[in-house]
């Protein structure tokens, strides 16, 4: 051992390893499984390809192909139409999960008195996650199908004279499945934020003459802001990139950005899929950025 290294070892023993060294294992994982794939995707999105091979190059061809015909104002191109449809699903799923998630979190945080009951209800929210996403989706089929429970019930009561076919393999069932799968991602962060609200703030608001709704809007909502943003980011990113739920619940008939990427990879059109992925990533980042701005602005009013 070199004499010079001795004081260094002694210092490490005393104060622990240098911060950079301590962070390195996670940094390595992060680099290997997040940064590197991302860089590869961006790189490949500029590659050239033919039907049967990928050619390393630097070309904007893939991006041009995605936006081909999109300058035509009369007839919307496929890309724009797909994005529009995905946005619509995102907005619907986000709004529904936000409303339901906020209400459930509010109930658990402010109306359930004991910590024990809160834990019990929380576990109830989590239990569905013990089965896989796909199974939870498919379990809707016997309920919503043409000969499903709901249609049988409606027909039996004579409310409708033929089965409703918009219940399954429709935009409705897709949104329903999204809400079913992702509401918990809203509940958890909002509940978390609500639990940190000092209860005396609510009394102070009541003391100042605020009604129940005013307390909700002027105190609880702004103080749950971080939870709402985190939950929204979860739900929106999940829905924007989704292809499984839209596939299963939409009967493989509804397009989405994720679905396009999945189809392109299955046809080995990796550069094109990569370009789509890069665009999707940018769009999602913009939404998240906009979301944080939006909530900020609300506070200024």
């Amino acid at each position, binding site marked *: 051992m070199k004499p010079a290294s001795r004081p260094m070892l002694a210092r490490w023993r005393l104060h622990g390893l240098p911060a950079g060294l301590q962070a390195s294992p996670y940094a390595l994982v992060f680099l290997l499984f997040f940064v590197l794939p991302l860089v590869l995707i961006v790189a490949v999105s500029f590659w050239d390809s033919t039907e049967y091979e990928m050619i390393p190059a630097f070309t904007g061809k893939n991006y041009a192909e995605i936006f081909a015909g999109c300058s035509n104002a009369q007839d919307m191109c496929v890309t724009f139409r797909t994005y529009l449809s995905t946005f619509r699903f995102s907005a619907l799923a986000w709004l529904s999960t936000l409303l339901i998630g906020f209400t459930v979190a509010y109930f658990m945080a402010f109306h359930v008195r004991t910590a024990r009951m809160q834990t019990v209800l929380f576990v109830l929210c989590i239990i569905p996650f013990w089965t896989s996403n796909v199974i939870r989706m498919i379990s809707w089929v016997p309920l919503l199908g043409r000969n499903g429970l709901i249609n049988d019930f409606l027909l039996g009561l004579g409310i409708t004279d033929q089965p409703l076919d918009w219940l399954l393999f429709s935009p409705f069932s897709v949104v329903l499945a999204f809400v079913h799968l992702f509401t918990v991602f809203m509940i958890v962060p909002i509940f978390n934020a609500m639990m940190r609200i*000092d209860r*005396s703030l609510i*009394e*102070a608001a*009541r003391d100042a*003459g605020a009604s129940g709704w005013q307390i909700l809007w002027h105190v609880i909502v702004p*103080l749950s802001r971080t939870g709402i943003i985190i939950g929204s980011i979860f739900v929106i990113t999940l829905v924007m990139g989704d292809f499984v739920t839209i596939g299963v619940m939409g009967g493989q008939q509804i397009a989405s950005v994720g679905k396009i990427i999945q189809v392109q990879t299955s046809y080995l059109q990796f550069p094109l899929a990569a370009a789509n992925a890069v665009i999707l990533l940018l769009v999602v980042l913009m939404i998240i950025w906009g979301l944080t701005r939006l909530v900020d602005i609300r*506070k200024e009013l």
Partner: protein
Amino acid sequence: MPNSQSALELVRVSKRYGAVTAVDAIDLKIPAGSYCCLLGPSGCGKTSTLRMIAGHEVVSEGDVLLGNRNITYLPAAERGTAMMFQSYALFPHLTVLDNVAFSLRMKGVAKAERQQRAQALLERVAMGPYAQRRPAELSGGQQQRVALARALITEPRALLLDEPLSALDPFLRVRMRAELKRWQAELGFTFVHVTHSQEEAMALADQVVVMNGGRIEQVASPHEVFNRPASEFVARFMGGHNVLAQDGGKVSVRADLIRLARQRPEGVPAVEARIAAVEYQGSYVLVELAHDEIADFTAIVPEADFFAAPWQAGEAAQVFWQATDAHRLG
């Protein structure tokens, strides 16, 4: 001039939580424009009492009157009371100005007007320049002033303070205590202040209400409470008292009226005790005495007297007092 509408009265007020009685049928009259301190150990019912006056706790039984109105069942905001919370409960997401203007905003007062009124109140508590700050950027003392301004904007007739000084460090506590007293004199309406510190109550109150176990032990001026404690509990809680057994009853003798001598004095009540410990406190010396039948037996000896004939721990002493200084306890 004290506003007669700010006299507060509790009539047989009780608070029960299930089987537990937190406040047990208390009667209390707080004169208009006075500074009243509810004093007692934790769990004595003082905070429940304050919260019942504020309307944040439902009265189980009895009536609360403010001025000539029965406010027992009115919502908190319609009672004419304003509450200052323990850690001030300022809204962390709002600026100081918006915090103060909050109740006006709830009432739907236009933005320009509410901001102007809030700003005027902030100037009054010397917080004008801080209007655009967030509460987290203020010191404890500044937060207290903002909390006061926020309470005052509702034009209350009684201000209810829940341990307002407990969030401050000892140095600031003394300063903000003086400030509270000054504001109360300036505003001229009733302040009801909950505290567990007898020092705070003595420094501030016109009227001290000593509570224990959901009941009121004594209501009197600080001077009265200190010189004529109504019960053993009050004597012990106020501190600076020795509780002694004397001809069948208990008496209290102020620790600073206890004398020590080496020879048994004539014609005054005296007991023999051992010096247990001596603590120098600056202007006086705290002498702890050990006696088999008397718990917490102390004498406060002026510094000059002590050093004229110093005592050592372990010495035997004749402890005496004037018969007139012994106050009989109820």
